[in-house]
C-alpha cells in the first residue's frame, strides 16, 4: 500500500484536552450521516462514549450516536475466536456455488476495495444499495451524460438555485447552511440575498419554504413538467398556454432559470418511493439544455454511509458503478431498474458476504437473502437479523475506522475516527481475502 493509505492525522487535529470531565475532543471529523459529508464535526468522547457531535445535524447526531458498538465474533450462533471465524467465513463463501458480496453502508473505500477483491476471486456477484435506490439516475447518466459540479462550486458561484422535489430539512438538513443558498461565496459575496431560490414542490416533497419563486406539480405531473420546462428552455414553449396550466407554470420556471448566470439544480438521487424513475433523466436533460445559453450544474443528492464510495470503487476496479457479476471470470454489468432491484442476480446464490451495517440492507434484498447463508462483517453484525452463519463485529467507518469515503458529489473525504478499539472492517476483510487466496483448491 502506498503512503496515501497511512492516515496519520495532521498536526492541527485531534485531542485538545485530556481532562476526563471535559472529555476528549476530535475536530474536523467527517460525518457520513447523509451524503453531504460535512467535515467540521467536533466529536466529544467521555469514558469511551460519544457524548456530543458538535455542528452535527439531527441525522448526523443519530449517525454518531454514542459510538458504542458490540465487539463479538459468532460462528453458528456461538462465540468464537476471530481466527476460527475467518476460517468459517472462508468455508461458507469459498465453497459456495454462487456468492453474493453485498456492500452495505458504513465501511471505508479501503474495506470496499477488499470486499470487491473477494467477489472477483470467488467469481461472485457484487451489489450495493445503489441498485435499489439510485439505479435510475446512474443508468440515465450513462445514456446521456450529465452536467454537474461539486458542492463547493455551487456555494461559491450559483446565483440561481432550483430545488426540485427535495425535502432538504428532512433529508439533508445542513445543505442550505453549508453549501447553498445561505453561505457567502467567492462570487456570491452576499450569500442568500445574492441568490434567487426557486422551488418545485413535487407531490408531498416540499423544498425550502423561503423560495423567491415556486411552482407545485403533482407526482403524476413530474415528468411532464420536466419535458415542458426543457421545451421552454429550448424556445419551444407551447403558445397561448392557459394561466396556471402546467405549460404556463413551467414556462415561467424556465425563464427564471435562464435568467441565472450559474444555475444549480438540486435534486434527490435517492427519493422516497413512489416518484417516477424517469425523473432522473428529465433533470439531466434540463441541465444539459440550460448550458446552451448559460451555465448550469445538476447536483444529485445521495444518502450517507459512503454509499457513493462503493460506486466509485466498483467503477475503478471493474468499469461499472453497481451490480457487477464476475461469474464468467470478468466483470459483467447486470443493472436492474429500481422496480426489479430485489432480483439480485440471474443465477442462484447459495452464500453471501454482507459487508457493512446489515441494518442498511434494503428490505427487498433482505427478502432475497432470507434463505441464504450469510457471513456478515460490519458494525452490529452480531445483531443482524440475516441468516448469519458467521458474524464479525467491526467499527463504523468514520467513527472507529479511518480511511477514505466519498461525498455525494464524488469528492473524496478523509475519515477521522474519534474512537478506537473496535475491530477494523478493512483488516478483517483482508484477512478473509488472504485466507481464501491461500487455500490450495482456491477459487473457481
Amino acid at each position, binding site marked *: *500500500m*502506498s503512503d*496515501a*493509505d497511512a492516515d496519520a492525522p495532521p498536526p*492541527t*487535529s485531534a485531542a485538545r484536552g485530556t481532562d476526563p470531565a471535559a472529555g476528549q475532543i476530535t475536530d*474536523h471529523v467527517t460525518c457520513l450521516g447523509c451524503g453531504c459529508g460535512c467535515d467540521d464535526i467536533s466529536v466529544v468522547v467521555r469514558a469511551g462514549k460519544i457524548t456530543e457531535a458538535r455542528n452535527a445535524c439531527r441525522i448526523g447526531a443519530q449517525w454518531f450516536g454514542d459510538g458504542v458498538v458490540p465487539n463479538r465474533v459468532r460462528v453458528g450462533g456461538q462465540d468464537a475466536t476471530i481466527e476460527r471465524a475467518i476460517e468459517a467465513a472462508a468455508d461458507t463463501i469459498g465453497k459456495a456455488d454462487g456468492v453474493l458480496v453485498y456492500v452495505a453502508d458504513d465501511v471505508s473505500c479501503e474495506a470496499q*476495495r477488499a470486499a*470487491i*477483491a473477494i467477489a*472477483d*476471486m470467488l467469481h461472485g456477484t457484487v451489489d450495493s444499495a445503489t441498485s435499489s435506490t439510485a439505479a435510475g439516475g*446512474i443508468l440515465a*447518466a*450513462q445514456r*446521456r*451524460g*450529465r452536467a*454537474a*459540479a*461539486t*458542492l*463547493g*462550486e455551487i*456555494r*461559491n*458561484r450559483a446565483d440561481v438555485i432550483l430545488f426540485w422535489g427535495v425535502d432538504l430539512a428532512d433529508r439533508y438538513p445542513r445543505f442550505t447552511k*453549508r*453549501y447553498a443558498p445561505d453561505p457567502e*461565496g467567492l462570487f456570491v459575496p452576499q450569500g442568500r440575498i445574492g441568490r434567487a431560490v426557486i422551488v418545485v414542490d413535487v407531490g408531498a416533497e416540499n423544498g425550502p419554504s423561503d423560495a423567491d419563486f415556486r411552482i407545485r406539480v403533482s407526482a403524476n405531473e413530474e415528468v411532464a413538467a420536466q419535458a415542458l420546462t426543457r421545451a421552454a428552455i429550448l424556445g419551444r414553449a407551447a403558445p397561448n398556454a392557459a394561466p396556471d396550466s402546467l405549460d404556463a407554470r413551467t414556462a415561467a420556471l424556465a425563464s427564471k432559470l435562464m435568467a441565472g*448566470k*450559474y444555475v444549480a439544480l438540486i435534486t434527490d438521487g435517492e427519493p422516497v418511493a413512489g416518484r417516477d424513475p424517469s425523473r432522473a433523466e428529465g433533470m439531466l436533460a434540463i441541465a*444539459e439544455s440550460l*448550458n446552451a445559453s*448559460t*451555465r448550469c*450544474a445538476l447536483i444529485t443528492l445521495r444518502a450517507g454511509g459512503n454509499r457513493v464510495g462503493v460506486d466509485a470503487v466498483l*467503477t*475503478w*476496479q*471493474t*468499469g*461499472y*458503478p453497481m451490480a457487477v457479476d464476475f461469474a464468467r*471470470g*470478468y*466483470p*459483467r*454489468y447486470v443493472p436492474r431498474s429500481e422496480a426489479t432491484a430485489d432480483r439480485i442476480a440471474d443465477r442462484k446464490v447459495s452464500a453471501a458476504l454482507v459487508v457493512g451495517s446489515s441494518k442498511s440492507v434494503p428490505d427487498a434484498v433482505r427478502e432475497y437473502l432470507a434463505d441464504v447463508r450469510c457471513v456478515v462483517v460490519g458494525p452490529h453484525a452480531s445483531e443482524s437479523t440475516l441468516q448469519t452463519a458467521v458474524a464479525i463485529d467491526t467499527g463504523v467507518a468514520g467513527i472507529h475506522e479511518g480511511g*477514505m469515503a*466519498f461525498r455525494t458529489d*464524488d*469528492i*473524496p*473525504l*478523509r475519515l477521522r475516527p474519534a474512537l478506537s478499539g473496535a475491530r477494523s472492517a478493512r483488516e478483517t476483510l*483482508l484477512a478473509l*481475502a*488472504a485466507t481464501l*487466496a491461500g487455500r490450495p483448491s482456491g477459487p473457481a
Partner: protein
Amino acid sequence: MTSLRIAGGTIYDPANGIDGAVGDICIRDGTIVADLPADAPRVDAAGMVVMAGAIDIHAHVAASSVNQARRLLPEQHAADPFAAPRLTSVVANGGTGDVVIPRSGTGGTVPSTFTTGYRYAGLGYTTVFDAAVAPISARDTHAQFDDTPIVDTGCFVLMGNDAYLLKQIAAGEKERARQYVAWLLGATKGYSVKIVNPGGVELWKENVREVRSLDDAVGDPKVTPRAILETLTEAANELNLPHPVHIHCNNLGQAGNVATTLESMRTTAGRRAHFTHLQFHAYAGERGKTWSSGAKQITEYLAQHPETSGDVGQVMFGQACTLTADGAVEYMLHKSGGGRWVNVDIELETGCGIVPYTYRDKAAVAALQWVVGLELFLLSPDPWRLVLSTDHPNGGTFLSYPRLIHLLMDRAFRDEQLKAINQKMIAGSALADGLAREYTLQEIAIITRAGPARLLGLSNKGHLGPGADADVTVYTRDDDRTRMFETPRYVVKAGTLVVEEGQLRRAPAGARHSVRPEYDRAVERDIKTYMDRYLTVAFENYPA
C-alpha cells in the same frame, strides 16, 4: 532479492550512447549493476531488442475525471472484458495490501485500474504519469493508483484556474503564489504543476466560452492567461521541480490556434516548460473558416529553444474518449457531434469535461489531426524534447502506441494510410508532400524512454546504466513494428520479471513519484483562512 542477467540482446540505450550494441544487462535487487556472477539466473535475449522500460509522460489513468469517464462507458467495457491473469507468483497488490489477488477488469478506451496496469506492463511500459489531477480529488487519484499494479505512477496537479492562485496574481503576490504551489504539491503528493487552458476553465464557469488572446482578463484585469503562465512557470522553475510545468494551452482544437501556442511558448521562453499534446494546438488557418497544419511552426520554435519541450498527443483512427479539465472544449465537441457529454465544475480549482469520440479517417478534421501529429514527429528537431503520447485516451488509447511506432518507423506503411484518408485539408501539408524520415530503434528508445525520463527528471529511469532502476523491456525483432511493440518477450519491473515469454506472470506494486518542495509555513495561515471561508473540505483534511 533476486539477480537476473538478460544475456546477449541488442541494446538500445541512448542515454548512455549505446545504439544497437550486443551485450548483457545485469540486475540485482531491483537495480541495474555492472556485472553478476556467471551462474546468476539468466534469460537469453540473443537476437532480441533490449530497451529500458517505457515511460508515459502524459496519460489519464487515475483521476476523478477518469473514473467519471469509466462510469460513462459500460458498453465499451462490455465489449472488452479482461479475465484475471494467471500469475505464477503473487507478490503484491490485488487491491488488498499484502495479499495478491490477480484481478479481472474491463478495457475499452478507459480501462479499469488493474487492467490498466497489466496492459501497460504488457506493452513494456513501466512508468505512467496521470496528467490532470484536481487538487481536492488527489486522495481519489492515489487510491486508484494503489489499484493500478506494476507501473510506477505520479501525477500533475491542476493549478491554472485555481481561485487562490488567481487571487495572488491579482494582488501581485508572486512570492505567495510560489509558496502556494509548493504547499499544494506537497499536500496532494503531486509531481508537477499542470496548467490546462490557463484562465479559460474559470471563464467557462462564468459562461465565457472563448479565450481570444493571452491578455484576456480573467475577472481581474491583472489576471490573464499570460500572467498565469508566467507565474506558474516561474514558480515551478524557482522550486527546481524535476519536471517544471506541464502546459495545455488555450484554444485546444481550434483552427488557427498555433498562434496561441507559439505566443504561450514565447511567454515561457528562457525557462523550462513542457507543452503537452501539441498536435491539438498546432493548427494554422482561421477559426470557423480554414484549417491546415501548423506543425512546422512548432518544430521551428522548438529548434530554437532548448528549454522548451513537448509531447505530441497523436490522434489514432478509431475509438477514443476525450476527457480533460478543459470543460469548454468538451461542450463544443458535444455540440458538434451530438454525443454524450459530461461536465463537472470542480470547486474553485478546475473543471472536467468528457465526450466519447471516434476519429474517422474519412473525416477531414480527424485526417488533418493525424497528419499534424505525424508531422510534429517527423519534423522534430530533437527527439529528446518532443516525445511520444496520444494523450491517452484523448487521441487514442495507449494500446495504439505500437501502431504509432510503426507509422514512425515505416514510411511505406505510413504512406499507404496517408493515401486512404480524407484529403480535403491536407493538400500542401509537409506529410502529403512526402516526408521520408523513418525513426530508428534508437530514436524510438528516445521518444518512449530516455526522453521522457530526462524531461521528468527521473535520473534512474529511461536508461540501462549501472544504478538505474531495473525496468527493462525485451522485444522480439520483427519488421512488423506493430506486432513487435505489442508483444514484448520479457518485461522486467524493478528487478521482477513481470512478462515472460510474452505472458504476464507477476504483478508487483509500482512506486509512487511525488515531490515535497520546501515552503514557508507562514503561508499556511493565509491558505487556511481562504479555505475556511470558501472551500467545503477543511484545511486540516485537505486533501491526500
